[in-house]
């Protein structure tokens, strides 16, 4: 295989050609003229504080749009069924599985993915730094989702108990089993472990 043809490029190529082929599928666009009708495909998305126009298929999930159309590949797709949490993002500040939300559902909302939580000057979010300090991730695949769930938890509950952290991160699987390290990380980020 051509060394420049990385797996990611190959996938992106296939998907874009597929998307281009369906652009002309008349039913969806035609119905867009109908008063109570179907959604417009070209929508503006507010992702990480930036508004970007994106051509979104009707049944496209947010995880797909983030990864394959906006190149925000920090959001991982683990199970793609809402059963693992790797794709967790914040929608209007609330933790949701990006694999189980239609992109068309978030067009009037503010989405924050893992790429959007560090400061403008590049300083990591307190949760990210605490996860590093606590050696929380092992393989790291679930980490973006764990970070987003922790950020959502701390924004509503800045000093959670260990049990509250456990509950707050309970929608995120870690197949390395590093749960205790993530919980320690959240407690550190909330200033309860120095």
């Amino acid at each position, binding site marked *: 295989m051509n060394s420049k043809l990385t797996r990611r490029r190959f996938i992106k190529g296939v998907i874009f050609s597929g998307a281009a082929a*369906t652009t002309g*599928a008349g*039913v*969806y666009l035609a*119905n867009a003229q109908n008063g*109570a*009708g*179907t*959604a417009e495909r070209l929508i503006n998305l507010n992702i990480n504080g930036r508004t970007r126009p994106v051509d979104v*298929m*009707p*049944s*496209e*999930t947010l995880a*797909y749009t983030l990864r394959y159309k906006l190149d925000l590949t920090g959001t991982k*797709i683990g199970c*793609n*069924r*809402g*059963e693992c*949490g790797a794709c*967790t993002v914040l929608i209007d500040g*609330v*933790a*949701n*599985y990006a*694999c*189980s*939300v*239609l992109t*068309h*559902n978030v067009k009037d909302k503010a989405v924050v993915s893992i790429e959007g939580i560090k400061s403008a000057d590049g300083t990591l979010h307190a949760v990210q730094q605490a996860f590093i300090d606590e050696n929380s991730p092992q393989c790291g695949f679930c980490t973006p989702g764990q970070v987003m*769930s922790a950020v959502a938890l701390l924004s509503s509950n800045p000093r959670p108990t260990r049990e509250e952290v456990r*509950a*707050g991160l*309970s*929608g995120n699987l870690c197949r390395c089993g590093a749960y205790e390290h993530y919980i320690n990380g959240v407690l550190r980020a909330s200033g309860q472990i120095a």
Partner: protein
Amino acid sequence: MPSHDVMPNMELYQPVQVEDALAIADRLAERGWLVGGGQDTYGWLKDRAKSADALIDLSAIESLRGIRETADGIEIGALTTLTEVATSDLIRGSYSLLADAASVVASPQIRNIGTLGGNVSQDVRCWYYRRGLSCYRAGGNLCYADTPQGMNREHALFDQSRCVAAGASDTAPALVALDASMVIQNLDGERVIAASDFFVGPANDIENTTVLRPGDILTSVRIPSTWANAEFYWEKVADRNVWDFSLVNVAAAFKTTDGQIEDSRIVVGAVQTTPRRLTEVENAIRGNSRNADTAEAVKELSTTGARTLAHNGFKVPLMQNLVKRAIIA
């Protein structure tokens, strides 16, 4: 079976008014698929186990959200999320049975978007059916779960009729216990149906778990004040504390006077397609105290009529114990 990353392309309607949604649902009929939070829907579509020509996304209809006090109780919009139900002061205050049930559905992220209407309308859990096999419920003429080789540990104990799948909702037993009613609209108008009549078993309709038909939209759930501030008991037993569906759950409400049970509702979930109200147990414990003797006396009665499958026999003592704990607690 191939694994699909994306859902097939289909039309998407996003009405913002109930009237528009009703018109679209009526026009599309069987071609349309109503979506609230979508947490049951997307799996079916990604797996290609079911399909629809068009999604009718109800999530932008603000009038279907929220919890209101009414003259006689409360009314919960069908699109109210399970997180909102679980954390509402109004519900926690007087109808905590429902809040407790909603608080243990699936995972936090799913509760953040999954709706009460969707939770009660979700399809049954049976991996053969959800795999897209042509079983009775899918319009075929075979049940794959109730065979000598069938894996049926999670399946039903009661009311099996060709299909042996169990209902998956945690909020459904709580709503039946609270004597809730469901408000359903279609283009012909509105009808209000008792929660106990909303759910249907395979003997009456093998392809649907509720009375909802194409063109219908469940718009709200009404809970009368009948059981407000009663003594409640909720317990869910599942293999995992998060994500997992109930193996058995129990939702119970008691009114006592001088320590004696005046009236009660005991409803068990995940033992048949519909929530199972134990009317005979309720009658048997009336006038008694909520103690171990009362509970022990109705132990056998609580599971009378159970027909176990090859692997779900454990659900009989599990259900008996949950009913006992509900009565004692």
